[in-house]
């Protein structure tokens, strides 16, 4: 019986507007939320369903703003960590990435006819700081408006980015290495996050404000459901009484049929 009323409530949901789902949000998760709220509140009339639809929509919004705040903080933290790594990484750690970057550039810009592996050999020699190789590479780079520092920076950025991705996946080597680097520098991931967020406090404040508004709306709807409970329980009591009465009637068929006819239609 209750399951029926819950599914009826969900099917009538369209009366209260389309689901408040934005592009990229999980519609199945919203349906699950609605189902759970319906099962918990057990609506007994359409007004109860209205309040439940409000609770579901507001709760979805609260979750949206919390998710956004969390991902914003996380994104800032990872960006700050990447910046920290770019400053702290030793050359030996990003040397391979530097070689890769340089090889690609040399392959595109060396004179035609030169062997393809020549670019790679030259990049390796340059990475080992071979004076002749460095001179040759500098000549090529000058021709295309680049400097060695740009390539070093690119290699460093790529390595830092790679390490951050491994840190996100909680790969033990990367976690250990980054933790060690942070400890040596006397900072923590929280310090980096706090510094990075200093610029974004206005964003966070606005998101918090929207979350508070949505929470207020959700609580007001819950309060209204609570307020109506005595009335609803009175109705429930009446319904139960009616069911019991009809059961008594059914046990005495002949009299029962007559009684049913005599009952007021509302």
């Amino acid at each position, binding site marked *: 019986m209750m399951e029926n009323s819950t599914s009826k409530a969900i099917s009538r949901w369209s*009366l*209260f*507007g*389309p689901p*408040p789902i*934005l*592009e990229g949000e999980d519609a199945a998760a919203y349906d699950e939320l609605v189902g759970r709220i319906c099962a918990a509140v057990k609506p007994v009339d*359409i*007004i109860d369903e*209205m309040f439940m639809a*409000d609770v579901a*929509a507001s709760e979805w919004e609260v979750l949206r703003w919390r998710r*956004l705040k969390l*991902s*914003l903080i*996380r*994104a800032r933290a990872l960006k700050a960590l990447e910046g920290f790594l770019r400053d702290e990484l030793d050359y030996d750690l990003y040397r391979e990435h530097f070689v890769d970057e340089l090889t690609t550039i040399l392959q595109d810009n060396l004179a035609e006819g030169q062997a393809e592996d020549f670019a790679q050999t030259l990049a390796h020699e340059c990475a080992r700081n071979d004076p002749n190789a460095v001179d040759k590479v500098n000549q090529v780079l000058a021709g*295309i*408006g*680049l400097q060695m520092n*740009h390539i070093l*920076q*690119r290699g460093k950025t790529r390595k830092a980015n790679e390490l951050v991705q491994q840190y996100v996946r909680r790969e033990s080597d990367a976690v250990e290495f980054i933790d060690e680097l942070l400890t040596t520098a006397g900072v923590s991931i929280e310090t980096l996050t706090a510094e990075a967020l200093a610029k*974004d406090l*206005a*964003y966070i404040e*606005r*998101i918090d404000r*929207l979350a508070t*508004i949505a929470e207020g*709306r959700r609580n*007001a709807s819950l309060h*209204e459901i609570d*307020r*109506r409970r005595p*009335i609803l329980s*009175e109705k429930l009591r*009446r319904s139960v009484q009616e069911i019991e009465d009809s059961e008594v009637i059914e046990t005495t068929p002949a009299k029962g049929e007559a009684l049913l006819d005599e009952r007021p*239609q*509302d």
Partner: protein
Amino acid sequence: MTSDRKIKANRANAKVSTGPKTDRGRARSAKNAFRHGLSLPIESDQALCEEVQSLARQIAGPHAGVHIQLLARRVAEAQVDLRRIRYARQQFLSGALAKNPYHYEPRAVTRLKMRILKHILKPELADIPIPAFVMNFVTAAPEGPTRFATVLSKETKQLLALERYERRALSRRKLAVRALDEARQRYYDDCIN
């Protein structure tokens, strides 16, 4: 003080430009002040009126008296209003998120990008390739959570305006539901007594 010559010139100019002349132009300019239409009463929209009627019937139940029907209609009106406000907000947010990512970029950043572009696109620098980090900066736009946060930050005013509409509709509905519940309670009490 405005000179006679200027006044005459203004009047002559005003005679030349007297607003849109075609039906299409007039229809369009009639909507110049239209933003979201939420301040328009529900009765002004036939479809919404029908929705109200249908919802009011469901709220009141099949054999309700005139008083209950009236109170149910008030609940239904507030509910339909709430629905259209929420729909407007959702459309607004979806539209804002679907906009060009550069649309919500801080102006200072856009100005800096324009200055860089103006410099690197000079004809005498045409043969020199643009360094990747410069290209990355010039083409970078807020993405993911940053983009959403930027949209929110830029559209706070509009979102709070919609919030005010919603608060008013919620308050109207709350009072209407309470009045309906009280009327029903009185009806039950009368039945018992």
